[in-house]
């Protein structure tokens, strides 16, 4: 049906035999791609397959090395630097692209400010911005500075900015990577509203269930080659995964090995409070994987950052291996064997203008010092190991990290965190932007870490991930622990009940009563 419809409907934007090389390095090979009005066409593929590059070409950000683009049936050369927006081709980048100092309203109207006479019509822009954010069910002040928003809210601002332009083709590069289930659903509502009006949507995601739910057609890329373009109804998540990775994917999650009953408690947090969370208490045992679930903004990251000394705590005690600790700098927690991997890889995780090696060893440079000087050979060996262990793929060894595909950046950041050989690893959204094949690898790495006696905290907005990995799950809600789930209690419904505040338990009942 959809196939037939797509064939009859005239595509609005199409790429014909597009190839792209960066310098000597080929990234895309003769790709055909098109999208029709009212259709959602998804692109999937492993990290570094060339998805982002393809959509950058479709929106004029990059020029193809060969091949052509047709818009409305006319062969065109799209103008660079996002000027294709004026033609109705709007792109949401994989990495956030907002000016941190602007306000929400300024950002949404950036480049097409409303005017009254020669002056900016600030009031009207603020009103319309608020209205757009309202349709997305996002509650942020239009006057708030971008820098004060959470990553998810920033993403929602990006989306608001995009949908408020008169897009004929809306291209989204992993818009849901930083969103939780609820926000994703609102986004999908808006996308359906737009497609009903005849907007063509190109959508990239590593979450296969989303693809199944939203897309009409799916294009699969692997190593820059077009593998197939198929109607979604002919697909199952498994068959897509298989096409992507080129092999069968079994057992996304490794089997859970419960930690020993008498396993010692490595980390114990009691009544921890900061500006944004209060009264957080939990234990982490040797060999345990502790999941942290909750809506975005529920304070999970704040807890992690307070534990490792990135933010100031206003109260509470942290005990590590039985000894009370109070980290005020990250260096201290790293030395004590506690490592935190941020979810904001562009803003806090990686130095985008530097190479893989410098990024990998930044946290642990002292390991590579010989007589006061950096031993680059030793760094190179570390990079070799990390590249193998985490399957980091860069087609060019010396490339700046900002040029790596998003997923490979994520893997590099994981490698960087693991370089400190921590006993306790706190991972904030560890598989954000990572393809299923690599996800599976990372899940197995996490399980192996726990099995060898380390303890892992996994903060994730992907419920499936929390459920599939964790021995216990802490559910947070508005800065407090709403409940702790164990064993058979760990189900999607149960987590959502606590996260949404329908259910409460434990010490929190006392406080909120």
């Amino acid at each position, binding site marked *: 049906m959809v196939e037939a419809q797509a064939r009859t409907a005239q595509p609005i934007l199409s790429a014909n035999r597009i190839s792209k090389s960066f*310098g*000597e390095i080929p990234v895309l090979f003769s790709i055909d791609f098109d999208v029709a009005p009212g259709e959602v066409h998804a692109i999937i593929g492993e990290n570094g397959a060339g998805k982002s590059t393809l959509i*950058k070409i479709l929106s004029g*950000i*990059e020029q193809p090395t060969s091949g052509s683009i047709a818009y409305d049936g006319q062969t065109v050369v799209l103008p*660079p*630097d996002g000027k294709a927006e004026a033609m109705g081709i709007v792109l949401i980048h994989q990495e956030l692209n907002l000016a941190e100092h602007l306000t929400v309203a300024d950002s949404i109207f950036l480049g097409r400010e409303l005017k009254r006479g020669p002056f900016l019509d600030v009031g009207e822009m603020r009103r319309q911005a608020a209205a757009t954010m309202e349709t997305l069910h996002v509650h942020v002040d239009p006057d708030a500075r971008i820098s004060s928003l959470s990553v998810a809210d920033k993403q929602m601002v990006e989306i608001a900015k995009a949908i408020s332009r008169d897009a004929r083709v809306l291209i989204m590069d992993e818009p849901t990577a930083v969103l939780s289930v609820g926000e994703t659903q609102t986004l999908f509502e808006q996308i359906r509203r737009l497609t009903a009006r005849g907007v063509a949507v190109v959508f990239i995601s590593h979450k296969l269930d989303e693809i199944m739910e939203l897309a009409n057609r799916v294009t699969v890329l692997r*190593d820059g080659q077009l593998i197939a373009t198929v109607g979604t109804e002919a697909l199952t998540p498994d068959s897509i995964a298989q096409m992507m990775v080129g092999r069968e994917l079994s057992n996304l999650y490794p089997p859970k090995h419960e930690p020993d009953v008498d396993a010692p408690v490595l980390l114990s947090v009691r009544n921890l409070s900061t500006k944004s969370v209060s009264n957080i208490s939990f234990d982490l045992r040797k060999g345990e994987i502790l999941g942290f679930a909750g809506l975005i903004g529920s304070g999970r990251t704040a807890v992690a950052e307070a534990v490792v000394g*990135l933010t100031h705590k206003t109260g509470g005690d942290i005990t590590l291996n039985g000894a009370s600790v109070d980290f005020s*700098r*990250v*260096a201290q*927690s*790293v030395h004590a064997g506690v490592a*935190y991997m*941020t979810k904001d890889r562009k*803003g*806090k*995780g*990686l*130095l*985008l*203008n*530097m*190479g*893989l*090696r*410098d990024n990998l060893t*930044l*946290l642990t*440079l*002292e390991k590579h*010092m010989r007589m*006061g*000087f*950096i031993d680059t050979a030793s760094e*190179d060996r570390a*990079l*070799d190991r990390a*590249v*193998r262990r985490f*399957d*980091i*793929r*860069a*087609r*060019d*060894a*010396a*490339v700046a990290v*900002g*040029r790596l595909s998003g997923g490979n950046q994520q893997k590099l950041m994981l490698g*960087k965190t693991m370089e400190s050989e921590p006993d306790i690893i706190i991972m904030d959204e560890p598989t954000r932007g990572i393809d299923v094949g690599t996800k599976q690898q990372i899940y197995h790495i996490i399980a192996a870490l726990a099995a060898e006696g380390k303890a892992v905290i996994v903060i994730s907005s992907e419920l499936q991930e929390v459920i599939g990995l964790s021995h216990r799950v802490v559910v947070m809600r508005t800065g407090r622990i709403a409940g702790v789930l164990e064993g058979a209690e760990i189900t999607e419904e149960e987590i959502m009940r606590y996260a949404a505040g329908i259910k409460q338990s434990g010490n929190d009942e006392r406080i909120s009563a």
Partner: protein
Amino acid sequence: MSVSAPEVAPKARSGFRWDLKTVGPLLALALLVLLGITLNENFLSYNNITNVLARSSFIGIIAIGATFVITAGGLDLSVGSMAAVIAGVMIMVMNWLIPVMGVGWGVILAGMAAGILLGGVAGVGNGLMITRGRIEAFIVTLGTMGIFRSLVTFLADGGTLSLNFQVADVYRPVYYDGLLGIPYPILVFALVAIGGEIVMRRTSFGRHCAAIGSNEQVARYSSISVDNVRLITYILQGLLVAVAVLLYVPRLGSASSTTGVLWELEAIAAVIIGGTTLKGGYGRVWGTVVGVVILGLIGNILNLQSFISPYLNGAFQGVIIILAVLLQRPRRAS
């Protein structure tokens, strides 16, 4: 498809432009030397070359400090005035001490110690206001630039502070003599440059400077003591200004309100011409050295010929700076 050892292909990484970025300053230097040779047969003479390099040494030593400050995302506008104050105080200290210690190296060493101390203190002051006070480096050092400048005018009572000429006689060789025919200022410049390059390239301090200049948040999350590293860059800058002044005082033997005027801009220009990014994140000391020599040669060549007025020196330097930044322009971000 995966990464092999990263040294494999740095040259091939983005072709011509990248090469130009690295080789650009060297190329400009080579062109200037060629030009100099064709214009005047004395250009390559021992006297001319040592003269140019010795003069460039002051700015050069200061600019190496500036390379670290700028790489770490900072800026120090106060170095020229700081140099003047240090020179003034050194001269005063030495003059004071003559009755106590007599004319001799003792006085000079005491003056040097005072200069180094003052440089360090000035650096600590700048650094603390920027890191602990959380004030923009531009503002802080614009402020201290004014303070230092007016201090030296005050100390000199609006005139000139002159070093006792007997002491000056003893001190003289530090500028005019040398080892194996190489004047001391050039030797010190070379040592500072080599040391600086090693520190930048091969120590964690250098790596951390680049990390902070590239993204302060990432540095903080990577357990780098951002404030301390920043502070050290300003202290290093202060100390290097003092070192430059130690070599400068025997040349002029005096300090006044015009000492060191515009040195900060020349230092920053040299850093930028050398390929360090003004907004931080990437720095190279050898580039700065090349930048300083380029600026020095422009003046020298204009003096050696008679077609173009040497008064246009500033204009040529300006053109070179703009060209350098043009070459540095990043390729369109992806």
